[in-house]
């Protein structure tokens, strides 16, 4: 306890212990002792370290529907017909596939439907296999789903412009429904390769046909950022979800005009910027893999270690955090603490600062 009181000098530089500081420190110790005593009277024991409770929902696939070319929707519900946890527009769930792969999907059903979550998946051949596997699932298959969480929250406004590209309609659809319900002044611009590839057209038109602008590439050509934003009043908040070129076009246009606040969600990760190739040694298997200049460590690791956990692929969810055994790291995440960075890295965005890393996987 003594070392607690041998602190820095007082504020005016006089060569004695700062009296105010000493008294505050004494107060801290007093506060602790008092609280501990009060708390002891209130309860018998303080529980110690614990394991995280697994809170995933055990659901079954209740319905599979083809929504467009290469797009199916799955309705997930409780096997005993129980109500599911509530959610809000913008929410997604982590789905654990039978193979153990974990993927995030936006909930795109109706928030008022308490008995089913609907997600939609576009099949991407030559991807990492998650979407192909999702397309093989049939009604009655049990499936593990996390509780809904909201990384793309819809806020309460009088006016909205919604921009969706292809399967990017999934988080936007419940937002559109909510905006219509509160009587907001909204507009949706929905783009895609062709109408037959765009899911939920009928559902959107049924919500409010006059506010939905469908722009299929094969009818009007690829829409530019300017075209997507042309009817927005200055200051209207824009909610955008779609492929990277679309989001980039919208961001570039908004950066130039400065007219609209933008909320967006990528459903594929941002490209690697200024990356150099390097080598990663996987300590547990002893194998060495090469990471390309435009590849993430995660993408290089996954074929070797399919069970590797990951989630947001944008450096903030920390799911893919691993221990670094050797090598300097170029940390590009926004989520690890300084102390964690000394020994750990996120696989999804961070890279080697030199040409080699040894990781504890």
């Amino acid at each position, binding site marked *: 306890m003594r070392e607690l009181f041998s602190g820095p000098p007082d504020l005016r530089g006089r060569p004695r212990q700062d009296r105010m500081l000493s008294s505050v420190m004494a107060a801290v110790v007093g506060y602790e002792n008092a609280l501990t005593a009060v708390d002891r009277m209130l309860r018998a024991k303080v529980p110690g370290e614990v394991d995280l409770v697994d809170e995933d929902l055990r659901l079954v696939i209740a319905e599979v529907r083809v929504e467009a070319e290469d797009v199916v929707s799955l309705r997930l519900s409780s096997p005993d017909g129980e109500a599911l946890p509530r959610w809000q527009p913008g929410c997604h769930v982590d789905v654990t596939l039978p193979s153990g792969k974990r993927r995030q999907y936006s909930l795109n059903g109706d928030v008022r439907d308490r008995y089913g979550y609907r997600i939609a998946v576009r099949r991407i051949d030559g991807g990492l296999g998650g979407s192909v596997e999702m397309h093989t699932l049939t009604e009655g298959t049990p499936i593990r789903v996390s509780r809904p969480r909201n*990384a793309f929250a819809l806020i309460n406004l009088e006016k909205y412009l919604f921009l969706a590209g292809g399967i990017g309609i999934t988080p936007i659809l419940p937002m559109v429904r*909510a905006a219509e319900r509160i009587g907001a002044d909204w507009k949706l611009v929905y783009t895609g390769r062709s109408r037959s590839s765009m899911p939920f057209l009928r559902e959107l038109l049924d919500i409010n046909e006059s506010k939905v602008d469908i722009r299929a590439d094969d009818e009007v050509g690829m829409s530019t950022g300017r075209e997507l934003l042309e009817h927005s009043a200055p200051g209207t908040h824009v909610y955008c979800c779609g492929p990277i070129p679309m989001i980039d076009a919208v961001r570039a246009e908004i950066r130039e005009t400065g007219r609209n606040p933008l909320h967006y969600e990528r459903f594929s990760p941002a490209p690697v910027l200024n990356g150099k190739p390097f080598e990663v040694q996987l300590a547990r298997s002893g194998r060495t893999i090469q990471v390309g200049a435009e590849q993430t460590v995660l993408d290089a690791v996954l074929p070797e270690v399919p069970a590797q956990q990951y989630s947001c692929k944008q450096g903030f969810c920390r799911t893919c955090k691993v221990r670094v055994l050797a090598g300097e790291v170029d940390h590009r995440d926004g989520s690890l603490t300084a102390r964690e960075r000394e020994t750990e890295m996120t696989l999804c965005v961070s890279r080697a600062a030199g040409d080699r890393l040894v990781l504890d996987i």
Partner: protein
Amino acid sequence: MTAIEPTSVALHARDVQFDWSKTPVHWVPDEPELAHFYNVMHLLLPELELWFVQVFTDALPYITDAKVREDVLGFIGQENMHANAHQGALDLLAANGIDPEPYTSQVHHLLQGWIDRTRKMKPKRRKQSLLNQIAVIAAGEHFTAVLGDFALNSPAFDEVGTDPVMSDLLRWHGAEEVEHRSVAFDLFRHLDGRYPMQVVSMLAVIPALWMLWHRGARMLLEADPTLTPKQRKLTLRKFRRWHRRGLLPNAKIYLPQLTHYLKGDYHPSHYGSTTQAIAYLATSPAAKAGQQ
């Protein structure tokens, strides 16, 4: 017509970039003393935030609920960013001949001393000590959310011509405080923090924060070589003027908030608007500049 208000947001740190090259150290026109009263935040908050991060990181093994854990991790990311962001403003003070080190080293010594003391304890005592600190942090976070709400709703700053970069720092920080206002309290409750502790910790936090803040302000005013002796004094008259001009939250804002916190059914989500916070974060120049 119903409204939409996000009840739960997956927190994540936002990258920000502040350009301090044009900001004067007296960034409220004609009110250098008020600027310094606010400048205390660049000295005090990073020390507090880095302490929060340590306490919350140490508390992780005790969390059983996946959502609380995720919120705590998001909170840690945001608080780290806040501490970094104030560094630029701290450099601005140093460039103007004000050495904040004597003050920051005292605060650091106090807070680091507390968590280091906890780390040496036996497991049972350690958890209790962490909970004591979390109670203090939850009470402190109530004030930062109130201050954040004030920053988001104070047009007076723009009307008097406050430096736009500093206003943005205040409001960006304030908006994230509003956004994550429930995390510390939820953690306190999750670790079985009880009502008497909620009251005691708040009653301890008020004089401690008041003392730390005023000490910091007096230190800055004394250290600023450009001020006159009259300017170096914090008088009641000055506070009244700042309250009247809407540049500083007054007792009418604090007292009701204090009584809310002391009620048994208090929850941070009942106060402040997540919609307003997220709307500001979508327009903040520093947050926009930080998006790669």
